[in-house]
């Protein structure tokens, strides 16, 4: 059964305040008696660990990187939203809330989103006080820009490196606590199991990546801030080591996994150039503000871009959506790019991209203005492709970028396993079926800085003066043994293909059948093929080397094993959700114009999947979504 989501009563604007008043507090002197394990040191994890330590809790922070400054939050380029209304352009908490619920295609919890919008204001204050060098105007005030098609300018940014600057800010706060001895930091420690005793989370088991040492850590509560699972697609904009393992092992221990089929495809990535491609690189969405997207009208047109006259260019977004044009939301832009490429109009050597053309703005504003605005992006593009976007139009194609699904959490960010919390991209909470641009940074920091520290005490008070479960306890010993067994098993299979090979093959299946557009027969087929590939993986994977030394093949094998199970669940979730919404597009459910067709009567709910065992499909639990403050409408960007 799905537990109550603990959404507070009362008008939406008061819910968070009244909830903060109603939760049980831990006396400041007692906070040091509690130990909290925070796994992951991205935006959500680092900010949560730092803030919990500031409050006085004993915190242990875990990251599988060599330092807590590497998490993939760092790669976010565009910015962070906040309802500051510094531009006086009609923004408000309510508008940010409304935009986020609407952008999420009405598949998120109103109360959570409203809280996110409220807290967004504090995030900017907090990060500025920590020294994040947000862009400023000549008057010395913070600069804002409009982002991702928003009608107001509410996005704060630090050049094209907003994610980096925010992460470094949170990392510095964390390192301050490490220096003060209030946070114990474990680097190179990968979570490989969550330990549950008597139905509640009591600790974790980690493997030290450079020594292979498996060890247990126990605490009163465990926070998973371990990011999203976009790498299930193999090719995504995620970093190479991003994985679902922490969340998935928690899922296997009973935590529900919600809405796995909600994956976001970002429209402006550099297309893959060949089979060896290891990852895709995102180009900031801000490029769509000035660049015009087109393909040749004639599918057999193989002339170079500059030889194609204006009349023979098909500006498909501008033609189909005259109001929003090139600035339609991510899912719409992505799907239309896929359509034209599938029609055979793709450009580039592999005919797998569409043009993003800057020649108009170059003519209008001149080289200098364009370079000032997009200089680093154009340079990055040239570095990767060897083509100068000021001479030849850029080629772009959609790629997986963010995953809205994740561990199910209640209003307190606690999963259905008591004592197990999840924050940031790892949970499913705030974005519904589609995330708006510049909202991921906002959510990670909201969870870590403001929400989790305020809600976690409510659970802890019951365990005052009770020490954490000893790591000598059989539950820990069993979990450790399980981890060791899995490592030894991988090393003993002695098959013929590397984990990388299986990951790539899995990614092709997921992209083909559970990618931008899905249909019933494809999803059925995907489940079968994923299972077959998974069986082959367990029989035929080749992992060389030893457990006792840095061994990235061995690490990867464990992660790929989890991706297989996740991919199957994604397909099952996509199959069950017989509607199109946000990042989930079922070809059977579209209007005559090819727009996503929601089914609010039957599917205005969260699908939270409970683990059974490796061979029995998960059980679906549904959390009904109530909409009191936002009217459900069909999105239209025409």
């Amino acid at each position, binding site marked *: 059964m799905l537990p109550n989501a603990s959404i507070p009563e009362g008008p939406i604007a008061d819910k968070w305040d009244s909830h903060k008043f109603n939760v049980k507090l831990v006396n400041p002197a007692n906070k040091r008696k509690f130990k909290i394990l925070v796994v992951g040191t991205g935006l959500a994890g680092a900010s949560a660990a730092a803030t919990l330590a500031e409050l006085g809790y004993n915190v242990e922070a875990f990251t599988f*990187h060599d*330092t807590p400054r590497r998490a993939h939050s760092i790669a976010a380029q565009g910015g962070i939203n906040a309802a500051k209304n510094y531009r006086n352009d009609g923004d408000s908490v309510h508008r940010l809330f409304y935009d986020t619920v609407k952008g999420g295609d009405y598949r998120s919890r109103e109360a959570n989103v409203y809280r996110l919008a409220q807290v967004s204001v504090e995030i900017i204050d907090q990060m500025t006080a920590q*020294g994040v060098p947000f862009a400023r105007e000549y008057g010395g005030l913070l600069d804002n820009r409009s982002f991702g098609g928003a009608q107001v300018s509410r996005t704060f940014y630090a*050049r094209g490196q907003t994610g980096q600057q925010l992460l*470094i800010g949170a*990392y510095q706060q964390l390192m301050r606590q490490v220096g003060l001895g209030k946070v114990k930091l474990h680097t190179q420690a990968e979570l490989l199991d969550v330990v549950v005793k008597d139905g509640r989370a009591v600790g974790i088991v980690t493997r030290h990546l450079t020594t292979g040492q498996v060890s247990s850590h126990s605490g009163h509560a465990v926070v998973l801030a371990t990011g999203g699972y976009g790498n299930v697609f193999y090719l995504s904009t995620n970093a190479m080591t991003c994985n679902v393992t922490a969340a998935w092992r928690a899922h296997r221990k009973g935590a529900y996994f919600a809405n796995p089929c909600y994956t976001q495809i970002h429209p402006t990535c550099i297309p893959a150039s060949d089979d060896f491609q290891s990852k895709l690189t995102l180009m900031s969405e801000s490029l769509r503000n000035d660049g015009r997207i087109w393909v040749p009208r004639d599918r057999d047109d193989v002339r170079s871009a500059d030889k194609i006259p204006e009349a023979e260019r098909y500006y498909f977004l501008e033609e189909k959506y005259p109001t929003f044009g090139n600035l339609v939301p991510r899912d719409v832009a992505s799907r239309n790019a896929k359509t034209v490429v599938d029609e055979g109009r793709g450009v580039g050597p592999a005919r797998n991209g569409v043009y993003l053309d800057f020649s108009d703005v170059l003519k209008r504003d001149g080289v200098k203005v364009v370079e000032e605005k997009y200089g680093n992006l154009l340079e990055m593009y040239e570095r990767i492709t060897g083509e100068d976007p000021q001479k030849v139009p850029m080629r772009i194609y959609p790629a997986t970028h963010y995953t809205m699904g994740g561990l199910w959490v209640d209003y307190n960010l606690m999963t259905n396993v008591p004592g197990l919390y999840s924050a940031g991209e790892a949970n499913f909470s705030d974005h519904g079926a589609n995330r708006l641009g510049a909202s991921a940074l906002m959510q990670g920091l909201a969870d870590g800085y403001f929400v989790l520290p305020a809600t976690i005490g409510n659970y802890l008070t019951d365990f005052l003066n009770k020490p954490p479960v000893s790591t000598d306890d059989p539950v820990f010993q069993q979990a450790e043994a399980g981890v060791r067994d899995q490592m030894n098993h991988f090393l003993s299979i002695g098959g013929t293909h590397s984990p990388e*090979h299986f990951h790539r093959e899995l990614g092709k299946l997921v992209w083909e059948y559970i990618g931008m557009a899905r249909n019933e027969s494809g999803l059925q087929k995907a489940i079968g093929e994923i299972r077959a590939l998974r069986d082959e993986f367990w029989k035929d994977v080749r992992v060389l080397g030893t457990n006792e*030394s840095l*061994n990235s093949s061995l690490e990867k094998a464990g992660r790929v094993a989890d991706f297989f199970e996740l991919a199957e669940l994604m397909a099952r979730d996509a199959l069950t959700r017989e509607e199109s919404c946000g990042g989930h597009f079922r070809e059977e459910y579209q209007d005559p114009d090819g727009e996503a067709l929601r089914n609010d009567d039957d599917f205005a709910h969260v699908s939270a999947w409970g683990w059974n065992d490796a061979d029995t499909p998960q059980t679906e639990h549904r959390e009904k979504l109530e909409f009191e403050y936002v009217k459900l409408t069909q999105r239209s960007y025409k």
Partner: protein
Amino acid sequence: MSKILNLTLQVWRQAGPNKPGTFETYQANGISDDASFLEMLDIVNERLIADNKIPIEFPHDCREGICGTCGVMINGQAHGHERGTATCQLHMRKFSDGDTIVVEPWRAKAFPIVRDLVVDRSPLDAVIAAGGFITAPTGTANDANDIRIPKEVADSAMDAAACIGCGACVAACPNSAGQLFTSAKIWHLNSLPQGQAERYKRTEAMVETMEQFFGSCTNHGECSEACPKEISLDFIAYMNRDYIKAKVKNRRLASQS
């Protein structure tokens, strides 16, 4: 369009910390020049695995030049010969058919080798933990626009804050000095109004922690050339100035209080 390269690699192989290491030679044939340097290593690794040989461990993660995980010595230059570029953003079209490429891990006493091309850069974190922050516990912030910061100051802070913590500055320095890394963080925080309260304490603490691990600066300028974010040597001068001031200022403050 894309060309095919046949390369000879000499890669440092070392089974673990304190184990002997040596250069191994590998043929990397049929590499497309569209591949990135790390993708070239991926291909070599896949071939090694197919031959039942242990693949090369190399540091990498985001492959977008921002996370700071990657970084190896390529033909005697940190992150290779292209300026302002992290190893992951270096592409094979910058090499020619028939090239021999020598790949070696970062070397510094503070960066012991973990395996093959991977080193332990944790002393950089120790420098940050010593003072690379502004004390602003959650909840204490005033409105973000209360303090105006001239655009030029914010831009200069951002130039310094662009550091990705890859350690190339230390690796490129003949003295294995950590000056560029440390000074970039010091200047990021010392130049902002929010960072003034702890300015001199921070400078002292960070410099003195840095010197526990790294060598001293002899102003060669290799660090800045190797830096994938092209962080300026100027910050080192600012750090030196603030450090001397810190020594004098704190004494005065102590006598006043």
